[in-house]
């Protein structure tokens, strides 16, 4: 009996501070893949959130309240993401959520946040996250559709008609493939070849040889490192002079390093964060991007990546929504997130609406060409 009482007291002691502190802090919960296969995305995201928490609190918090971002690492595992989401909702009682890092993990935790009626801003790109629109779910990265539109617009301007695609067989590649298969005919182009490779494949000359036999005007490759670097190298090896478009999935310096001089002349859509130096001075994102890059690089001593920007956008959109409604109640945050207009973020300018929970369009990308191992904007 006494033991039972003791347990009760201990349990109360654990639960009490959570309730007591709910009033003077704003709690945001994040599910981030800091380790595991998606760590290249999750690590800059975590860093950005840690940095933002300090910056916001140093300048007086949100509505005068202290901001607390609780970050759980899901190790890029779906199960751990669901557990982390559950913990954020039930134990930490967060007012809004950020995450997950990958599309798969986001889709897995959507139902938890929806059921708890807490808004979630995802840092993953898949269109399915916001289409069909779920009232509680938002996302910050541009959709594949925007990148594909940007690429096909450019290809059309060049007079290319016959398009070959080569996509990776993981979630990112297959989502891209679906959009490509839909938009290529829609924009009046012909798809002459549709090749697939595995995420860990080390040689794609077979696929490229097949593509060469179809004689396309341009090739579009959809994947994340290292596959596209191998494809760029194989293309050079086969001496294919067909123009090669890459996706925004390889918008990192690492890709240029990996592909070496095989990356010369490749075209890809880029978020403005990657080419902040080159965008015109009067562009509304310019100053914000330069500040974010300077802050991030001086604090973490590693180069910034566009992935950290997704976290920046997610946190700052939530902050904006709280300040708009002067309330940190989950319901109010949700309602106001949907009303945000003209919000300048790292990914682009967000115009949310009840029908669009992403708020970006294809102008959030620029087309760039890789010249002398660096990006050069070819169309704003």
């Amino acid at each position, binding site marked *: 009996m006494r033991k039972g009482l003791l347990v009760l007291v201990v349990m109360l002691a654990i639960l009490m501070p959570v309730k007591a502190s709910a009033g003077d802090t704003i709690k945001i919960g994040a599910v981030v893949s800091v380790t595991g296969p998606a760590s290249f995305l999750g690590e800059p995201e975590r860093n950005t959130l840690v940095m933002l928490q300090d910056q916001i609190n140093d300048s007086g918090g949100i509505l005068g309240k202290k901001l607390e971002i609780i970050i759980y690492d899901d190790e890029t595992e779906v199960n751990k993401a669901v557990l982390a989401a559950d913990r954020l909702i039930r134990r930490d009682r967060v007012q809004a959520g950020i995450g997950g890092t990958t599309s798969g993990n986001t889709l897995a935790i959507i139902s938890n946040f929806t059921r708890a009626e807490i808004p979630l801003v995802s840092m993953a790109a898949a269109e399915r996250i916001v289409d069909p629109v779920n009232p509680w779910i938002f996302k910050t990265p541009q959709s594949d559709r925007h990148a594909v539109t940007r690429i096909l617009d450019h290809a059309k301007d060049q007079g290319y008609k016959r398009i070959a695609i080569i996509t990776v067989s993981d979630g990112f590649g297959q989502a891209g493939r679906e959009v490509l298969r839909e938009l290529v005919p829609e924009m009046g182009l012909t798809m002459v070849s549709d090749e697939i490779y595995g995420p860990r494949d080390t040689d794609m*000359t*077979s696929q490229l040889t*097949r593509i060469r036999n179809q004689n396309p005007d341009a090739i579009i490759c959809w994947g994340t490192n290292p596959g596209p*670097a191998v494809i760029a190298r194989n293309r050079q090896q086969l001496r294919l002079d067909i123009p090669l478009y890459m996706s925004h999935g390889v918008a990192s310096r690492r890709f240029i390093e990996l592909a070496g001089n095989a990356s010369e002349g490749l075209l890809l859509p880029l978020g403005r964060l990657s080419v902040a130096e080159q965008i015109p001075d009067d562009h509304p994102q310019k100053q914000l991007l330069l500040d974010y890059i300077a802050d991030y690089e001086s604090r973490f001593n590693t180069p910034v990546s566009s992935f950290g920007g997704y976290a920046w956008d997610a946190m700052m959109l939530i902050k904006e929504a709280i300040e708009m409604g002067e309330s940190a109640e989950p319901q109010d945050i949700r309602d106001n997130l949907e009303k945000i207009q003209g919000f300048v973020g790292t990914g682009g300018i967000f115009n949310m609406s009840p029908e669009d929970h992403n708020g970006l369009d294809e102008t959030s990308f620029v087309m760039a060409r890789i010249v002398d191992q660096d990006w050069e904007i070819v169309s704003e």
Partner: protein
Amino acid sequence: MDLGSILQYLVSGLTVGSTYGLTALGFTIIFNATRVINFAQGEFVMLGGMLAVFFAGALNLGVFPAVLLAVSCTTLVGVCMERLTIRPVQGANVVNIIIITIGVSIFIRGVVMLFLGKDTFSLPPFFGTEALEFFGAMIIPQSIWILLITMLVLVGLRTYFNKTIFGKAMLACSFEQKAAHLVGISVDRMIMLSFAISALVGSIGGVILTPITLTSYDVGIMLGLKGFAACILGGLGNPFGAAAGGLIIGVLESFGAGFISSAYKDAFAFIILLVILFVKPSGIFGRADIERV
């Protein structure tokens, strides 16, 4: 289908198949000495590539010293693995030791991830980047290197096992450990040697493939799996069957991707593997009498 395309598929299949083969060889050598499947074999391949990248980049060595250093370090890792994890549990159930090798592979992967990072890395090719044209197929010099070195390793191993006293002693251990012990062969030392040799062979595979295929801390998983499949295909316990099995899987994948559909590339190899195991359970080059009592 023109000759150029067919040759292209063949060359890329042989190139990738060589690493499967070298990984499979490593499995076989340890299996022969200990009856254990060493699931850390893929990690030896990864270590070879990652360490070569590290030595070439961080220590600013040329490609050749870096490669030599990487191969020697990996061999040392193989020896340490045997000393620290396999020998202390000597006499344990084979299944237990296999679980230990899985543990070692996770450990090696974790250490490499922590110290060398989670990125993908590349290594400059040994000689020349310009592709050579051969009947309409494009061959990069590194592919020729890979095939040559694989052949050399095979010939070297054959000579070692057939002509040297150490090689014969190792073979003796694989046939009957107790009898080998009775005639004065140090079984412990032979087992250690088998780990050293398979780490050596694996890391050679890793360093020669890295300039073409890039490397990262987790490439060992897939290579280990394909190498294991090659081993089974060629007949478990037969080194030359293992190497041939690797080449066959590589070529099948490449032709499958080229002629039928790249979407099912990985499936072809495993379908063929299943068919062969149904028809000839001991593998193409395996003897049916390896059952031991």
